[in-house]
Structure formats: structure tokens, C-alpha cells
């Protein structure tokens, strides 16, 4: 310890020494220190320390320690809060920061929270670019794109990205375990291509496509993450110069080996890149999946860069079994000259898809127990050339959708069950679902992998064979011997029946197009006859028979409202009848000639039997049929009706929302059903073990599977997928242009335009139907709900609230949330099966319909909450008139009608009752005049919005779309613009086998 006096001396000498040059100092010190060596030593040490000491403590402490202060949160533990997010556990460290699993209390969901490291956030230009890009990416709505929920800065200044939490492994993890088989690689890469295509369509380039950014989910989805985030790490244009490429990349600390290998030549060379760089990177990823390494492997990043920049093409070392076609596609994807490369990822992906189909076809021979079962009735060609056979319809046929399939959701499904006579009720649900994201067999494999709790050695696909490609299949069946497939198809609003020889792909129309609706088709057990049920003029269903291979129609029986199922020896069949007058459903057994009816079971009072029909067990003892019941919501059970003792028993105790068709495996070990777990999940295929009812899922996607028939290991079903976009158009303009502002796949239902100018819509987010809002120009999308399923949004007149139907706490009730951020949820009704809310323009009331026990009624409840008041019975989908005095409703006494009723808000009998050709499952809307209603009308398979003048009865077409269905629409507050949720559903018969 230096004493004070001593320090004073040292200080004095030190200061004085400053006045001397370093050269003079030794002499000076000799002089002033004399023989006090220790003082001299001290001063010398201090002078030494002083030299070159300008930087020391030159910045204030908080800057000095800013990294420490700001980065403290990178080591969060469970329970800590970052902004409003509550950390649950760390998920890992990404290129740009740490990722945590966190809870978002505002929306009550789990999210992946990426906290951007401060080191990336120091440059405001970068941050700005990153934010722009991430916001753009957050608008992407595609099943293969990881959803970005929110981008922002926490209260304590951390940049964060709240993303969809993806349970799965990265492609890198999987690659570490080995290479992929060609088909498996295609399965993944095609999905990545779809994700990139959706981004490129809106001008977003990923820039960093690599195995680390591709997630494989156990259910088979492939998800691409970190769209646009590469902006944060890439070299800014002004920082790079052509000649310095290598140096730049070399010195750029962020450019790690892992990334360089996937970078395109132009990305290494130039400041700006376009979508073709993603094609390159995806090509490299595909190559690596096949071979285990990239074509530009080298000892160092710099050597890799040299290889990539070198003009000569890479040497591809693909195994012999990789088809030449595959090699050609790959070569074109990684052409060094980007002008010679694939120009769009869509083309790249479509070539891969064609290749995949080809490979699948070739693979079929390897498992088929039927030696002749080799050729496909639908010849896909890589170039997409149209077929010459008459089966193949042109693109326009895709737009021709079944009316009954057009638009429906769970509640309309219920309504239809209740009201729609013979048209297969459950069938209605098939129109509203999703896009092919993966093939079921692959999904199954992945599920097995999940079961084993370790990733698969490789994702191997079971082959799927498309038996039709017109996209308008209605119902289908395979013959027991596996040689024939019959299906009904719709074209230009008419349906016809086609018989396909699976063996040689030959087809013939057995029943010509007619204005009928097919309910189902069944082969006789000896395969000599084809039986089918159909409705004509909305009358009860009629059963017909054709002796194969003829076309001669024989009417067997009226009052058959489902496909039939034969007894083992084929002398009798069973079916479901729906008596519309008594609302009774009966399971009936009849002799094969239609005589000797015998009722096996009944359902009434809102309970139903599936009009997709029963399945007679191969031993003849029981008939299985889905039966519905109301018990705290709508449920369906798979019931086994015992023919010997008349008893009935549920198979298994799984709670289904709906079960469509059911089919027996011939050995009676199991049944296959198409069923929904929840109102808003798609109908998927499931195997139910018999008799214990254990459930095994067969398909894993967002598609809808309707018909089910079995032959040995084969399942024939109809797969429907649906995609949609939201368009905004100004109908009154000379030549109105529609602009797409949002796109998606899967279930969608309901659109509203708030008085504050936001468009509110419901769509599938994850596997839930959620409500989001978006600006009319497509910006500022915010997901408002994430709990349960929420749909049919309406907005309050003051724009403060969104009102919608939701099952967030069980049964469907009407809820209210704040329109801005989805906060403050308030439950307005407390019963069951409440749908279609509409808010009165005076902001006082919410009207809605109730469908409990399949009975319709209309109610109103105060917007601020309170006692619901019943307004009427037998109506649904109420909407308030602009003066809040009247309510227009759909009116459903009899199915197939398009009746509309208008009555006073106070209730009482209808004031007006008339018919307009409104699309099924669609509510009406009032126009501002107060004497016109707008509605969706379908002509030639596509929809437009029309108006109906209550005074004159005149109808007028308001929009000018010439394709697609409209699933929902909403008028802007000034009625000058309209937002439409439009899309197509494509239904084809497919055949698959389980291994």
C-alpha cells in the first residue's frame, strides 16, 4: 500500500515527467528521485503504462460493458420473461442467436422465440433490411413455410422473431444419419420447392437454403425456416466489390463453411441475387441428400469458393441407380450460369414431381401382389402434356366443382346433415380442405419413426397411384378382386359414372352425364354387377344396377340414401335411409332384388347414421355404420350392429367428430375409415383394429379423404386438396382488377372487413382454424387467435371487436376479441353449436344461429355480453340490415332450397320470404342501400357475387371472376371494394397400399 505522502511524491514526479520528452526522462528521474529507487520504479512503471494508454477506458463503462448488459438474456432459464414471452426451455442456437421454446400468453400458444444476437443488431442498416425481409416473409402462408408470428423488439431492446414451433429434426440431423433414397429425397425437396415457390411468387428470395434450414416434422411435413434472415448476415452491397469477392467472403466472419457450400456463384460474386440462387442451393441440397456430400467439398471454405466460382461444371458422382433423368434435372438446377439454370423453382419442382411419379410407378411393380397390376390408367408425362384419352379433362374441368362439395364447414356440415336429404351429408365436407403436402405412406413411415422415437434411416414412401386426374371425382369403389374401379365424376355441373380397368388402364363411361348426384358406388361381391345410388331432382336416393361390362341401367330400389354394402354371400345388402319428414335415419337390410326390407337400427331426434353407408362384416354377423350423437357437442361413433341379437356396440372409444365411409378388411382384423377428429381437422384415413378398436392413422396431411373401399392391401379413396387466396377488387370500376393479398391451403372460412379498414379472415394455421387480420394491401398480417378453432369472423360496427364462433373451451360458442391484437377474449354465449355471428350496425347486438341437436334457431346477444334472446326458429345465418331493424336469414325447411327470409329484429313471423340462387353454406349480406342483398352464385362451376333487389326482384352480377369458388367475401366499409376468399378443390381417386 502506497502511503498518501508517497503517492503525492509519485504524482508530482509523474506530472513533471510529462513535460519532458521520453528521451529526457531518465535524466529527469535521476534528478528528482535521487536514491529513492522505489519511487523511481513506481514512476517508471506508471510512465510505461501511460505510453500508448489513450484507448484505455476511452469509452464509458456502459458502452464498455454494453455487450454484457444487453446479452444477459441469452442465457435464459425456464420461467423467465423476455418481453411478453415466457421462456419454457432452450431449443438451440441458430446462426443468428439463441432459440427458445416460449409461451406467448397473449395468444396462449407455444412458439419458437429466436432472439437475435446483439452482434447482428449493431448495424441499423442491416437491422432495417432484416426487418423488411422478415416482415415480408411473415406474410407467407404456405404449409411448407415456417410461420413467422411476430417480429419485434422486446422492452429491453432485443430483436426477436416469434415463429411457429416446429417439432422435428433438421435435414442436417437426418443427413448425419445417412443419405436418402431418390424417392425420399424427392419427397422432401419437392416440398421445399413448394415453399420457395410461394416465397418467390411474392418476391422473397430465401438466400440461405441449406439442410440446417429445412425441418422434417414427424408427421411428414417439411418446413423451411429463416426466410430472408440471411439478409442479416450477408455482406452489404456497398461493402463488396467484384474483384474482392474471395477476400470478402474470406474475411466475413459469418460466412462459415456450412453456408458457403450452398451458395451460388452469383451469390458469391454479386451484391444482388434473385430466386435462381435458391434453385442452385436446393439443387446442392438434393445432391447432398443423394450422395452425402456437396459437389464443392474442399478442405477450406476458400477452396470451396474457388470450386464454385470456377467456370467448369461440377462433376456429379451419382450412384448408378439414380436415373439419367434425375441427373439431368440436377445438372440444370446447378448450372453455374444462372441464365442456363432453371429459371423458376416451380419448373424445377414440377420436373421433380414428374420424375417422382415416374419412380413411384416403377416402384409399384416391386410390391404388387397382382402380377398384371403395373400400368397406370393415367399416364403422367414429365412435360405435362395432356392425355388423349377422354378421361382426361382440361384445366377448366378443375374449376367445375361439385355443388355439394363447394363450400362447407363443420357447422354447415351439421346443417346439411340436418337438412340435406339424400345428398350424402358427410360428403359435403370434402370440398373445403387442403393441399397435398405429403403422401400418406411416407407420413406413416415417419410416424413409425416417431413411435420408435428415433429418426428413420430413410423416409421411404409407399407408392400412391392416381387413378383419375380430372380433379372432380365424387365417389369411388374398387372391386373385391382389385381389377376394377368405378367412380362418379362431375363435368360442367353434370355427373357421370366411369369404369376403369385397373389392369390395363382402359376406361369407359358406364352412365352418361346427367343432372344427378351420385351418393356411392359398390361392386357386387362376384364383381359382375355395379350398384350405385344417386339422387335426381333432390328426391330421395335411388339404387341402380348395371350388369358388367354393359351399360344397361336397372332401377332396383327407391329410398336408398347411401351406398350399399353386401352380405358375404351377396344375397342381401344394407344401406341407410333418411326420412326427411320424420328426420329419422334407419339402417336397413334388404334382399338383393330390393325386397324384404328389415330395419336393423334407427336414429332420430338429431342423431344420425352416416349417409356414406354401412359396411357388412365378411363373416356376415354384424353391420358397422357410423352413428352420430349430441353429448356436449357433436360426436360420431363407429357402431357395430349385431344381426343375430339386435344389439349394438361402439367399436373402440375414440371420439370422432365425423366418420364418413367405413370398409372392412376381408380377414376382419380391421376396418378402414375416413374420419375427422375435430370439426375442423380434415377427414383422414385411419385403420381401426377389430374388435378392440385401436386406432392407427394412415394418412397425415391436410387433404380430405372421402370414399373408402378395400381390395386386399389396396385402399381406394378420393383425395381432395384445396388452396385459396384472398382477393381484393373494386367491382364498380370499368375493368375491375383483383389483387391477391394472401394465400393459403386447407380449411378457410369467413371474411370480414372492419370499419377501421382491416380485413379479417379465418384460415388453417398449424392444424387449427384461426382468425387473422391483414391490411387490404396485404401488409401487417396479425394472427388474432390460436386457441381452439375460430371461424366465421364478423366485426363490430365501431371496428373494436371481432366476433366469431370458437370451440376454444369445448362446445362452439360466440366469442369476442379486440380487433387490434386479439386480446381480451370474452365469451358471449354459453351453450353449444352457436355459429355465424353478425353484429348490428348500431353496435348493440350480435345475432347468430344455434344448431344444437341439429335444430335451427336464431338468437341475439348484447355485444357487451348478457342474456341471449331467441329471435326465431328454423333459420340460420342471420345478418343485420344497415338500419339494424331487420335480419335476413337463410331458411331451411327442406333441403336443396335457396329460400331467404327477412324478419324484424324483434322476432315474429317472416316479413318477406323469397328464393334466390344463393350458393349453399353461404350467408347473405346487405348492401348499403338497405334494399339489396348480395350473395354468392355459382354458374358453370365458378362463383361470383351477385345482388338481389328486394324491391324489384332484379338480380345483378357484381364481380367478374371466371374461375374458382368463392368461399367467403366481405364488403369494404364504403362498399366500393370487396374481399373474396377464393380457391379450388381438386378431388381425384387414388389407390394406395400399406406395407
Amino acid at each position, binding site marked *: *500500500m*502506497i*502511503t*498518501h505522502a508517497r*503517492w503525492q511524491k509519485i*504524482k508530482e514526479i*509523474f*506530472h513533471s515527467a*510529462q513535460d519532458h520528452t521520453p528521451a529526457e526522462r531518465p535524466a529527469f528521474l535521476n534528478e528528482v528521485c535521487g536514491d529513492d529507487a522505489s519511487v523511481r520504479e513506481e514512476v517508471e*512503471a*506508471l*510512465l*510505461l*503504462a*501511460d505510453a500508448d*494508454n489513450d484507448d*484505455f*477506458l476511452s*469509452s*464509458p*463503462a*456502459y*458502452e*464498455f*460493458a*454494453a*455487450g*454484457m*448488459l*444487453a446479452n*444477459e438474456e441469452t*442465457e435464459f432459464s425456464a420461467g423467465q420473461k423476455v418481453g411478453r414471452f415466457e421462456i419454457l426451455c432452450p431449443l438451440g442456437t441458430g446462426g443468428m442467436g439463441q432459440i427458445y421454446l416460449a409461451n406467448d400468453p397473449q395468444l396462449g400458444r407455444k412458439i419458437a422465440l429466436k432472439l437475435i444476437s*446483439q452482434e447482428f*443488431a*449493431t*448495424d*441499423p442498416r442491416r*437491422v432495417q433490411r432484416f426487418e423488411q425481409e422478415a416482415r415480408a416473409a411473415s406474410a407467407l402462408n404456405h404449409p411448407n413455410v415456417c410461420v413467422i408470428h411476430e417480429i419485434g423488439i422486446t422492452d*429491453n*431492446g*432485443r*430483436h426477436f422473431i416469434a415463429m411457429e414451433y416446429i417439432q422435428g429434426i433438421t435435414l442436417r440431423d437426418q443427413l448425419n444419419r445417412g443419405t436418402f433414397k431418390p424417392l425420399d429425397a424427392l419427397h422432401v425437396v419437392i416440398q421445399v420447392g413448394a415453399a420457395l415457390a410461394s416465397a418467390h411468387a411474392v418476391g422473397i428470395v430465401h438466400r440461405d437454403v441449406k439442410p440446417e434450414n429445412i425441418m422434417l416434422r414427424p408427421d411428414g411435413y417439411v418446413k423451411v425456416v429463416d426466410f430472408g434472415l440471411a439478409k442479416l448476415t450477408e455482406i452489404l452491397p456497398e461493402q463488396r466489390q467484384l474483384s474482392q469477392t474471395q477476400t470478402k467472403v474470406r474475411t466475413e466472419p459469418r460466412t462459415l463453411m456450412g453456408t458457403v457450400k450452398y451458395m451460388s456463384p452469383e451469390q458469391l460474386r454479386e451484391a444482388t441475387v434473385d430466386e435462381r440462387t435458391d434453385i442452385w442451393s436446393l439443387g446442392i441440397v438434393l445432391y447432398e441428400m443423394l450422395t452425402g456430400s456437396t459437389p464443392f467439398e474442399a478442405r477450406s471454405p476458400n477452396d470451396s469458393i474457388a470450386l464454385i466460382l470456377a467456370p467448369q461444371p461440377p462433376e456429379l458422382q451419382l450412384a448408378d441407380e439414380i436415373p439419367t433423368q434425375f441427373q439431368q434435372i440436377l445438372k440444370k438446377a446447378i448450372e453455374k450460369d444462372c441464365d442456363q439454370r432453371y429459371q423458376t423453382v416451380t419448373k424445377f419442382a414440377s420436373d421433380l414431381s414428374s420424375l417422382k411419379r415416374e419412380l413411384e410407378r416403377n416402384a409399384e411393380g416391386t410390391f404388387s401382389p397382382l402380377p398384371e397390376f403395373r400400368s397406370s390408367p393415367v399416364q403422367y408425362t414429365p412435360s405435362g402434356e395432356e392425355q388423349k384419352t377422354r378421361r382426361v379433362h382440361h384445366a377448366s374441368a378443375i374449376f367445375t366443382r361439385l355443388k355439394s362439395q363447394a363450400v362447407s364447414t363443420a357447422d354447415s356440415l351439421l346443417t346439411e346433415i340436418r337438412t340435406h336429404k339424400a345428398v350424402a351429408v358427410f360428403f359435403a365436407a370434402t370440398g373445403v380442405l387442403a393441399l397435398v403436402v405429403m403422401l400418406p405412406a411416407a407420413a406413416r413411415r415417419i410416424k413409425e419413426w416417431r413411435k420408435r422415437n428415433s429418426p428413420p434411416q430413410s423416409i421411404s414412401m409407399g407408392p400412391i397411384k392416381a387413378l383419375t386426374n380430372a380433379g372432380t371425382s365424387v365417389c369411388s369403389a374398387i372391386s373385391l378382386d382389385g381389377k376394377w374401379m368405378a367412380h362418379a365424376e362431375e363435368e360442367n355441373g353434370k355427373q357421370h359414372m366411369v369404369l376403369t380397368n385397373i389392369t390395363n388402364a382402359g376406361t369407359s363411361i358406364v352412365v352418361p352425364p346427367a343432372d344427378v348426384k351420385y351418393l356411392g358406388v359398390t361392386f357386387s361381391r362376384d364383381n359382375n354387377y355395379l350398384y350405385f345410388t344417386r339422387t335426381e331432382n333432390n328426391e330421395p336416393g335411388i339404387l341402380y344396377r348395371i350388369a358388367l361390362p354393359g351399360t344397361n341401367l336397372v332401377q332396383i330400389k327407391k329410398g336408398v340414401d347411401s351406398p350399399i354394402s353386401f352380405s358375404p354371400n351377396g344375397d342381401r345388402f344394407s344401406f341407410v335411409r333418411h326420412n326427411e319428414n320424420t328426420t329419422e335415419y334407419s339402417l336397413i337390410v334388404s334382399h338383393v332384388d330390393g325386397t324384404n326390407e328389415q330395419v336393423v337400427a334407427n336414429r332420430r331426434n338429431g342423431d344420425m347414421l352416416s349417409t356414406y353407408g354401412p359396411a357388412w362384416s365378411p363373416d356376415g354377423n354384424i353391420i358397422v355404420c357410423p352413428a352420430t350423437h349430441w353429448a356436449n357437442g357433436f360426436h360420431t361413433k363407429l357402431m357395430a350392429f349385431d344381426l343375430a341379437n339386435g344389439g349394438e356396440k361402439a367399436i373402440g372409444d375414440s371420439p370422432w367428430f365425423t366418420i364418413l365411409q367405413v370398409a372392412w378388411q376381408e380377414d376382419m382384423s380391421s376396418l378402414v375409415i375416413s374420419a375427422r377428429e375435430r370439426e375442423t381437422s380434415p377427414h383422414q384415413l385411419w385403420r381401426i383394429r377389430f374388435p378392440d378398436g385401436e386406432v392407427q392413422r394412415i394418412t397425415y396431411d391436410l387433404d380430405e379423404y372421402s370414399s373408402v373401399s378395400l381390395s386386399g392391401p389396396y385402399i381406394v379413396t378420393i383425395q381432395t386438396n384445396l388452396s385459396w387466396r384472398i382477393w381484393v377488387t373494386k367491382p364498380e370500376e370499368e375493368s375491375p382488377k383483383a389483387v391477391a393479398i394472401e394465400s393459403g391451403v386447407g380449411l378457410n372460412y369467413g371474411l370480414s372487413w372492419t370499419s377501421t379498414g382491416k380485413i379479417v379472415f379465418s384460415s388453417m394455421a398449424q392444424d387449427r382454424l384461426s382468425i387473422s387480420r391483414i391490411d387490404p394491401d396485404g401488409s401487417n398480417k396479425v394472427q388474432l387467435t390460436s386457441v381452439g378453432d375460430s371461424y366465421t369472423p364478423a366485426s363490430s360496427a365501431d371496428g373494436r371487436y371481432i366476433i366469431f364462433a370458437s370451440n376454444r373451451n369445448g362446445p362452439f360458442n360466440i366469442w369476442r376479441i379486440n380487433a387490434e391484437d386479439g386480446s381480451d377474449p370474452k365469451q358471449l354465449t354459453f351453450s353449444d353449436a352457436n355459429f355465424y355471428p353478425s353484429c348490428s350496425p348500431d353496435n348493440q347486438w350480435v345475432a347468430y344461429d344455434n344448431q344444437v341437436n341439429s335444430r335451427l334457431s336464431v338468437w341475439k346477444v348484447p355485444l357487451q355480453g348478457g342474456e341471449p334472446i331467441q329471435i326465431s326458429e328454423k333459420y340460420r345465418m342471420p345478418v343485420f340490415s344497415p338500419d339494424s331493424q331487420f335480419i335476413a336469414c337463410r331458411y331451411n325447411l327442406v333441403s336443396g332450397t335457396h329460400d331467404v327470409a327477412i324478419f324484424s329484429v324483434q322476432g315474429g313471423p317472416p316479413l318477406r320470404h323469397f328464393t334466390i340462387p344463393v350458393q349453399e353454406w353461404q350467408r347473405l349480406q346487405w348492401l348499403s342501400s338497405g334494399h339489396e342483398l348480395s350473395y354468392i352464385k355459382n354458374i358453370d362451376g365458378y362463383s361470383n357475387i351477385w345482388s338481389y333487389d328486394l324491391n324489384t326482384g332484379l338480380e345483378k352480377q357484381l364481380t367478374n371472376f371466371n374461375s374458382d369458388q368463392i368461399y367467403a367475401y366481405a364488403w369494404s366499409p364504403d362498399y366500393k371494394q370487396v374481399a373474396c376468399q377464393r380457391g379450388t378443390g381438386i378431388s381425384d381417386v387414388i389407390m394406395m397400399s400399406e406395407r
Partner: protein
Amino acid sequence: MATRSSEGITQLLQRWSEGEEKARDELMPLVYDELHRLAVTYLRRERREHTLQPTALVNELFLKFSEQHSMSWHNRAQFFGVAAQFMRRILVDYARAHYASKRGGDRYCVSLRNIAAFGAQPDADLLALHDVLNGLEQIDPDQARIVELRFFGGLTIKETAEIMGTSHATVEREWRLAKAYLKRELSRTNTH
């Protein structure tokens, strides 16, 4: 910083400066929030451009307080002195916690390898600096105060001189020696 907290900070700083130790404990977390925010702002926007004036931290605090309240700190110098002292206190406490959480409470000096790399590990280096500054305080309280104002308070030489009530040249001189002392002490610590 919430208004409620700011009100508290002003009063607490006063009480603390009047010797009430309890006030310090209450003050810490409140000032820390602000400090943290400023550090983050600095990191996010200003590091490269150096647009943030060195005095920004305490000045901002000062302005905040005087804007939001009838400022009872009539003596600006007094405020800065207390605030800088406080910054030191808080940063050191923070560094201690941070360091302990990172390294399981090892002695921090072991990580100081080389004075040239000072700042590479802000937590450890801050703690080491705090120790040697304590030493300086013993032998030259004025110099220690200058370091506090300059380094922890972020004040300029001129501002420091104003607050110390002394000349620019003196502060410059004393600051220079203090830095030399601290640096030498740090390298000593390091070699031990």
C-alpha cells in the same frame, strides 16, 4: 422507465446521497433498467457511428428526472456525482452476478490474460477494474472520483472539471495518471 419508478429514483437517490444505505438497494434495480435500455440502444444503433455523446448516459438520466419532476437536485454536480457513483455500483454488481452465473463463481482474475485484451470479457474486466479503483480511492480519492465520473458516469473532461470545481488541465492530468495507475495495477493483478 415508468414514471412511477422515476419518481422513486429521484427520491431514492436523494436519500441515498444523504447516507441512507437502504435506499441504494431499492435504487439499484430501478436505475439498472434504464442503464440496460441505454446500453441496448447504444449497441443497436450507435456503436459504429459514435453519435452518442459520451455524456449521454447520465445526461439522459438527468434530463429524464428534471423533465418528469420538479427537480429537487438543484445541484447538477451533486446529481452527476451520485449518479456516476451509482453507475459504478450497479455495473459492478451486475458484472459480479453475470460473471458468477457464467463461470460458477470462479475468481475472475484468472480470466484476465492480457491487459491488451481489456474489455474482451467485460464482466471480469469490470470487476478487476473495480478492485484496483478501490485501491486508487485509498490513496487518491479525487482521482478515483474522476475515474468514476469519466468512466462510469461517461462525462467529458470539461464536465468532470465543472463538477469537480477544478480546472480542465487538472482533470486531464489526474485522469491520465489514474489511468496509468489502474492499467499498471491491472497488469499486476494479472501476472499474479
